[in-house]
């Protein structure tokens, strides 16, 4: 029977030592990756919290921006006649009414059955190109409302004409039905309504332009 002593044990090949630098590099890189991976997790959690803040139900007493990002109307008006005497589509404008007062009026979107608004608008002058700072309040084009459970808001849509504006329809929404972000309402054609769909966007007053951009996504 033969014993292999330490002296007799096979020695690792000479190149084996050359692998040590590679191991050290991998260990150092792995150590850093292990540490920063935890940091990234907490950063992802922060992003998630922000997303949560930009979704969910409205809170009582809080103020919010509200605007219609899209309004679709039926191909004919409330009298079942063609819009603009069959020449062109309707020129759509909407207003938001809260407690019986118009708190916001949109710009008019010409010749559209589906009109859209970004909720973001900046008036530019040539001199502004030299540099201008824009606050969220200046740039966000939306109505401002305070959420109370029992209250309602009303969206009034008009077809803007040179002679007289025609009613497209009015839709009353209980504030409780609204949530932060996108809210869609599909409507039936009636004798007093030619609105097919309203897409409302709601965001907290504390939101900035980046939040608005996220909600518009």
């Amino acid at each position, binding site marked *: 029977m033969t014993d292999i002593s330490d002296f007799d044990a096979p020695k690792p090949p000479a190149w084996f*030592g*050359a692998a040590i*630098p*590679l191991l050290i*590099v991998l260990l150092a890189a*792995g150590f850093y990756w292990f540490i920063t991976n935890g940091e990234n997790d907490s950063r992802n959690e922060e992003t998630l919290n922000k997303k949560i803040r930009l979704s969910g139900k409205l809170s009582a007493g809080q103020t919010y921006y509200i605007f219609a990002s899209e309004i679709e109307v039926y191909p004919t008006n409330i009298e079942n006649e063609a819009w603009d005497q069959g020449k062109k589509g309707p020129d759509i404008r909407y207003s938001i009414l809260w407690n019986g007062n118009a708190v916001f009026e949109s710009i008019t979107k010409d010749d559209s059955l589906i009109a859209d608004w970004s909720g973001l608008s900046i008036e530019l002058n040539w001199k502004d190109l*030299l540099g201008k700072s824009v606050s969220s309040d200046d740039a966000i084009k939306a109505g401002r409302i305070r959420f109370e459970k029992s209250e309602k808001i009303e969206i009034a849509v008009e077809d803007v004409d040179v002679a007289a504006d025609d009613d497209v329809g009015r839709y009353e929404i209980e504030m409780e039905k609204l949530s932060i972000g996108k809210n869609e309402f599909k409507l039936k054609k009636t004798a007093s309504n030619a609105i097919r769909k309203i897409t409302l966007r709601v965001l907290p007053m504390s939101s900035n*332009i980046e939040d608005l*951009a996220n909600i518009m996504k």
Partner: protein
Amino acid sequence: MNVTRFIIAGSCILLGLGLIAPTLTISPQAGGITWIIKIIAPEELAASTYSILGVIQKLYQTNDIFLAVLLAVFSVFSPILKLSFYWHATSLENSKKFNSTIQIIHYVGKFSMAEVFALALIIVVIKSFPGGSTANLEWGAYLFTFSVICSMVVSLRLDSKRG
């Protein structure tokens, strides 16, 4: 030789960290219309921080395979290979083998772009970009540079022992 191995180990640690740590942050600006871009597409002006491995990964993902391989070979594999030969050289007793290993190291060193890469990073930072965009070196670049310096010190120490 123990001191030399200690420096090689230090260089390896710095290289490992330098490859994965943030190396360069680029903050894009669009001159006079920066404020408009900030509103319309803020993500376009978001500062981007890259590590060396991050750049290689990004090049690979954007199908710039040639550049990705080039950067990986010259800035990652070649410096590691050089450090491996240094380590191997420190264990050699035979002066003939030692000299031939040093010759191989000098040959491999020609393909190591680590020094060039560190210099290129500094030039990129000094160079001014159009529209007020800026590039800032992050701490990973300094680790990478120190790794290069340690590697140079090792090279000098081994050269001085050459017969």
